[in-house]
């Protein structure tokens, strides 16, 4: 039963990612400034989800896909935050926010090859990614609240970015324990128990992509009409 639910969730996730890509495609002109990397991330997520689902149905090991996905997802989401949080402004003589990205990416590749096995889970990379994404997400909230408090000009498009940010926080905070303990789940736990946890992870993904759709939709914002009732 849990196996069927997992397969159903995997298909639902692919469908939701397709909707995300369709919404991005339709509104690309309006969203490309802030969410270009989210568009790339959605394409990567689709490719990875299709590849891992296909490999799983073919009863082949699909763990290496997770390693590729983790590194790619981290780079693209980090670049998304780099853009919307203007992390580039923090650079001194060295662009340390970008150096940090390169260092973490390097660690992830090194860890996949030398520390963790490519055909197993990658709890170190994944946990590190979860922590960095949660921190960036909280940083985004702080920056937003400061903008409101200082009465900076109101931009309705920021509502869309806030939703995307909330989706990222919920996904990575919820996934944190699962990926931290993923090797234990795989090797120590009963299949039925670990599947329940993967269903939980799948539901988190469904929630994330649903929020992403609304966020991108809001970011695209309809044509500007000035109207009012004085």
């Amino acid at each position: 039963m849990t196996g069927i639910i997992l397969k159903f969730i995997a298909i639902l996730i692919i469908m939701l990612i397709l909707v995300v890509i369709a919404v991005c495609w339709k509104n690309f002109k309006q969203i490309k400034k802030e969410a270009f990397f989210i568009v790339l991330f959605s394409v990567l997520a689709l490719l990875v989800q299709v590849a891992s689902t296909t490999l799983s149905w073919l009863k082949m090991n699909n763990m290496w896909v997770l390693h590729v996905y983790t590194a790619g997802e981290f780079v693209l989401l980090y670049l998304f935050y780099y853009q919307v949080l203007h992390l580039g402004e923090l650079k001194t003589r060295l662009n340390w926010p970008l150096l940090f990205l390169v260092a973490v990416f390097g660690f992830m590749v090194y860890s996949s090859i030398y520390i963790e096995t490519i055909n197993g889970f990658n709890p170190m990379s994944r946990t590190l990614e979860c922590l960095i994404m949660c921190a960036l997400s909280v940083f985004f909230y702080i920056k937003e609240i400061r903008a409101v408090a200082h009465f900076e000009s109101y931009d309705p498009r920021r509502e869309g970015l806030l939703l995307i940010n909330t989706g990222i926080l919920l996904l990575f905070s919820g996934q944190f324990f699962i990926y931290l303990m993923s090797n234990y789940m795989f090797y120590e736990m009963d299949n039925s128990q670990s599947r329940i946890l993967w269903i939980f992870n799948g539901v988190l993904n469904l929630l994330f992509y649903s929020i992403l759709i609304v966020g991108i939709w809001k970011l695209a914002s309809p044509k500007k009409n000035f109207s009012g009732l004085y």
Partner: protein
Amino acid sequence: MEISFTKEELFWLILAGSFFTLFMSTGFALLYFFYRKRLTDQLLKTSEIELQKKSELLESQIRGQDSEREKIARAIHDEISSKLAILQISIEHLKRINLEKNREETDLIVEIIEKLIASTESISHGLLPPDLEHAGLISAVNGVVEVLNKTGELAIDYTWIDLSDGQHIKETELGIYRIIHELMHNTIKYANARNVRLNIELNRTSLAISYSDDGAGFNMEEAMNNGLGIRSILSRVQFLNASYNFHSEPGKGMEFNLKKIR
């Protein structure tokens, strides 16, 4: 000391841990949205008070401006125009008495006085259109439309429905007349439009106008920040306490709708 968990305990630990972190982040996000809404409401309240003060100031400015314009228009009409007319008659009389003597000079003076009378009338009508006072908004706008259509530069398709039973509210109609005037001014000066559609609907309870052109259009945000004309239109709308809808995009003309409950 080594801590060991059974499979069951490990399962519940991971599930509880995941729910806990998810619960914490959801709580954080909800608290954030709640706090942000409270902060926005607070700031909105403060800005509303400021806006109210500004509106009152604006209202008194517009009232003062209109009243001054009316006074100047009446002064021009009653004092200058009438005296110029008397002067013209006097010189015509002088011309008749002196017959051929200084005829060229007197002709020139008469011509100058005629031009002066025309100019003062034009200024006076611009300040307070006489049609607006005597025949109402629809007729006053018609006067402007006829003049502009005659130039051939602009084709104004002007339609109206008047179900007001001759009830005119001078202040409202003057405000709307000035808005239409400003819209036309923008169309002529900036939009390079060929066609304009203007519709006025007057009835006992409401007054609505719809204005559109096929000109160059503009970026609304930029115009709101930099365009004096647009700001002046919106100030008038605010003064009238009317609802409106304004839309324009570069290359796509503009559209303006206004409705005022009388």
